């Protein structure tokens, strides 16, 4: 486990637990969702149609997050900020740090054990309200991603070191749908060229054009403060090395509108020739206003 992240998480939690009602609270608890590993408001792996903050149509909101994914051979941390305006537009920034195992560093004769990627995200709500409208809330977004270095990407056969994903997401909360409990689901279609989210570059020998990948989440609100659910994210196979679809099972705790904490068990399959990448995902979002 990454100690620094744990420390930051616990300090963050204390700050937010003792500072009630700083955040915008124009939305119902839990409807701001969680922080996605690429910075957008969403589930953990999948962007949702909901925006990242608790802003209503008359408010703005800002939040920051830190996520840590610790699987068999790799570790990735993602930190970032998201702001949302009038429940209409969301802007986000995330920096991902992907730490490679020793065997890959020597195998590929790399000089650095880390790959960093910056991601700027934009999302616009096109229709509806996940809780109240008859049809799901629908948003469209993009994520512009840039690697700090193309060394690893080009070694594994990627064509470029930056790319833009475009997605459309639909999210709906069904009040009292499952024996009185609220059910939330989200489906996203993403046009992408990214290999392993872009950490291994964009495009490759097998494919170098945009492909549409399907992503989904389903969750159940066990109480106003606890959500359990699952996620699935389809992945392209642009490189000659295998890339698997991702899945996770998560539990989130949302004590108030200032903070949420998520723990998940993730299964990333084969990543950069390493099989069976499974492990723990931890994430915290703090809402500033």
């Amino acid at each position: 486990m990454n100690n620094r992240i744990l420390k930051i998480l616990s300090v963050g939690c204390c700050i937010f637990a003792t500072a009630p009602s700083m955040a915008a609270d124009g939305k119902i608890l839990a409807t701001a969702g969680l922080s996605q590993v690429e910075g957008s408001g969403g589930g953990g792996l999948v962007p949702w149609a909901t925006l990242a903050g608790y802003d209503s149509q008359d408010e703005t909101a800002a939040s920051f997050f830190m996520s840590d994914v610790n699987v068999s051979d790799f570790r990735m941390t993602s930190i970032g900020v998201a702001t949302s305006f009038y429940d209409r537009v969301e802007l986000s920034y995330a920096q991902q740090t992907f730490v490679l195992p020793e065997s890959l560093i020597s195998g590929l004769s790399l000089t650095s054990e880390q790959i960093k990627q910056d991601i700027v995200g934009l999302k616009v709500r096109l229709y509806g309200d996940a809780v109240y409208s008859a049809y799901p809330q629908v948003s469209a977004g993009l994520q512009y991603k840039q690697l700090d270095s193309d060394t690893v990407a080009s070694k594994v056969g990627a064509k470029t070191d930056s790319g833009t994903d475009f997605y459309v997401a639909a999210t709906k909360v069904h009040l009292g749908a499952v024996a009185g409990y609220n059910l939330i689901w989200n489906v996203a279609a993403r046009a992408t060229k990214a290999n392993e989210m872009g950490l291994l570059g964009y495009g490759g020998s097998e494919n170098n054009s945009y492909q549409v990948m399907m992503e989904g989440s389903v969750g159940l609100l066990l109480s106003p403060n606890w959500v359990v659910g699952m996620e699935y994210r389809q992945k392209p196979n642009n490189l000659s090395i295998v890339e698997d679809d991702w899945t996770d099972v998560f539990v989130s705790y949302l004590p108030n509108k200032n903070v949420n904490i998520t723990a998940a068990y993730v299964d990333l399959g084969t990543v950069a020739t390493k099989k069976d990448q499974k492990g723990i995902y931890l994430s915290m979002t703090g809402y500033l206003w």
Partner: protein
Amino acid sequence: MVNLVKASFIALSVFLVACAAPNKAPQSLYDEIGGKPTVEAITDNFIDEISFNKDIYRYFEKTNITRFREKFIEHLCVNTGGPCTYTGDTMLKVHQGQKINETDFNLTVDLLVSAMKRAGLTYPQQNRVLKVLAPMRGEMLYK
């Protein structure tokens, strides 16, 4: 493992959808939550919550609370399937001109939720009451 997670993902989705299908016994939500005394308790708690919330109370400053109480009880009774007749005005007519914004609407829902909690409704029961009221939001917001 990926397949196992995928299979359980699908199984859970199917299970959730199956549960979501209306297959419940015919007892009304009104009876289930405890009928007249509970609906009255919710309404009284709601009025209490409103009177202590300055953001929402300002909408009610000129309201005849006796009338509001009576109509709100009838309204809640009818919408949860109870044996009442609603004699008040339409949601559009009552809330029109108040320019209720989304923040205040959601805040009022929070107050209603605490009113229900204080009246002893379980979390699933609160959700089911909100479910019947939620579609009315369009007649109240920004009118």
